[in-house]
């Protein structure tokens, strides 16, 4: 009987330990990125990010559903011109953050996403995404763009400044 109780206690403690480990897991990102950073768990931005990824690729891309990217007041900067955000025509695919078809992901500010040669944040093919509390500025497209492939998005308490493109046929702007 005593052995059985002890075994049960060990199992319970083990389960609690595993649970705590899972809940506290998070990634961190900062510095210069030379390839797209895949967000596979809750992720903290721990310093300013400069995006030097290949032309036409996103800087950060969600690769799991139900996870959150927290900007923590830092800045994510793309390769666009500091005045126009563009540096020529809009560059397809070169966004700051894409939700990449993942469900119920969150981008949470405060924090600044600027100078991407396309949208600052693109909610692409996602259901239930949430973009909250960020600032998007000087992006050559929309600051936050929610295309027709996305549903039930919440875009709340953000600030969009000086986004847009003079390209004919591209109607864009803040949100």
């Amino acid at each position, binding site marked *: 009987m005593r052995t059985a109780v002890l075994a049960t206690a060990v199992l319970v403690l083990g389960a609690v330990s595993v649970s705590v480990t899972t809940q506290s897991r998070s990634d961190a990102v900062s510095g210069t990125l030379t390839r797209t950073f895949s967000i596979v768990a809750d992720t903290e931005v721990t310093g300013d990010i400069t995006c030097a990824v290949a032309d036409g690729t996103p800087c950060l891309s969600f690769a799991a559903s139900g996870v959150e990217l927290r900007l923590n007041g830092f800045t994510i900067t793309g390769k666009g011109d500091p005045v126009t955000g563009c540096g020529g025509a809009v560059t397809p695919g070169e966004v700051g953050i894409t939700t990449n078809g993942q469900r119920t992901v969150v981008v949470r500010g405060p924090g600044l996403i600027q100078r991407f040669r396309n949208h600052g944040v693109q909610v692409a093919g996602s259901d239930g995404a949430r973009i909250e509390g960020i600032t998007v500025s000087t992006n050559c497209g929309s600051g936050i763009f929610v295309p027709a492939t*996305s*549903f*039930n998005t919440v*875009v*709340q308490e953000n600030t*969009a400044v*000086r986004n847009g493109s003079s390209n004919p046929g591209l*109607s864009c702007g*803040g949100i």
Partner: protein
Amino acid sequence: MVGHNSRVRLNTAHGNGYSEPPDDFGIGVIGNATGNVIELNLVTGNTNGIYIAAAVGQNIIRNNTAIGNPAIQVGNTRPDLRALDIVNLSPADRTVFDRNKCVTALAAPCPAINP
């Protein structure tokens, strides 16, 4: 914003968009966007403030403040741009407007602005 069944609320949009061509915006409901609620946003100094394109479905635009779109110099010197606080190009029964504050609009109500 082309997505569906979304909430865009409590955002501020300032100084967005180019005036050539004048189809940029602070907040845009474009493409075939349907079922969205755009509410409680502050939208100033953009090419157009809130822009609703022709082919959208049913959407609700309520309790927004869209004023000063575009800046007065642009509006006065380039009236041909037809850039306004609210531009509604959708059919009459598609978009619901309720208690927005604006000064200039196309096919959308602009109630008197109280100081």
